[in-house]
């Protein structure tokens, strides 16, 4: 995978550091570790609408971008607040 965007570094006291590439699922915002030489499908999949990789849980499901989810959560909270149902 080219330019996965996230990086993880494990530092050990007695051996070399291990580095790994990660990507963040564009549908659920979870971090996925990129396994070198593994196919995209084995790490999840590819959302053609977002043009970004998705995790295994989101693979094969309807495109629901994470930004949309955030807006939905925030608008729901605003609605509840305006109705006096929560703070």
């Amino acid at each position, binding site marked *: 995978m080219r*330019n996965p965007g996230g*990086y993880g570094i494990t530092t*050990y*006291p007695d051996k070399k550091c291990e580095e790994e590439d990660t990507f963040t699922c564009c549908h659920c915002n979870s971090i996925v570790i990129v396994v070198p030489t593994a196919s995209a499908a084995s790490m999840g999949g590819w959302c053609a609408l977002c043009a970004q990789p998705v995790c295994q849980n989101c693979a094969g499901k309807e495109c629901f971008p994470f930004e949309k989810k955030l807006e939905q959560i925030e608008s729901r*909270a605003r609605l509840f607040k305006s109705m006096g149902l929560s703070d």
Partner: protein
Amino acid sequence: MANYMVPLTRNLSTTASVGVIYTTSAVALRRIAIYDFTIGVQGTPAGLANLWQLQRFTAAGTSTAVTPTPVDPGDPAALTSAGQNNSVEPSYTAGTILASKALNQQATYRWFAGQPDQRLIAPATNNNGIGVATPTAGSVGVAATIEIYYNE
């Protein structure tokens, strides 16, 4: 958008979270975007492993407040709240584990987002945020810390 850092510490427990970072403000609610975190044990580490997890929640529970520090001293104080050493667990949302890392206590792990779209984002909704837990631990009672860098 300003950058902040907050360290969350507790003696490892499989039932109580290390800490939480969440949106709450009487002034304005802002999204939290974590772009860097480092986890490790600063007590006397054993050659045993812990499972670290970052997960979303919708209620922050009870914890000891920790004040996030602006990375740039010229930035204003954070509107986001943070807490450590939870005595009441946050209401974690099922199926929203954002990061999961099994790590030997003698090792340190750092993750960072190289691009803005890789950040872990919590909505600008009251008491919503991201908690850090160690649901599995080879040994408990050892002091451990996660250092979180985020934008708000």
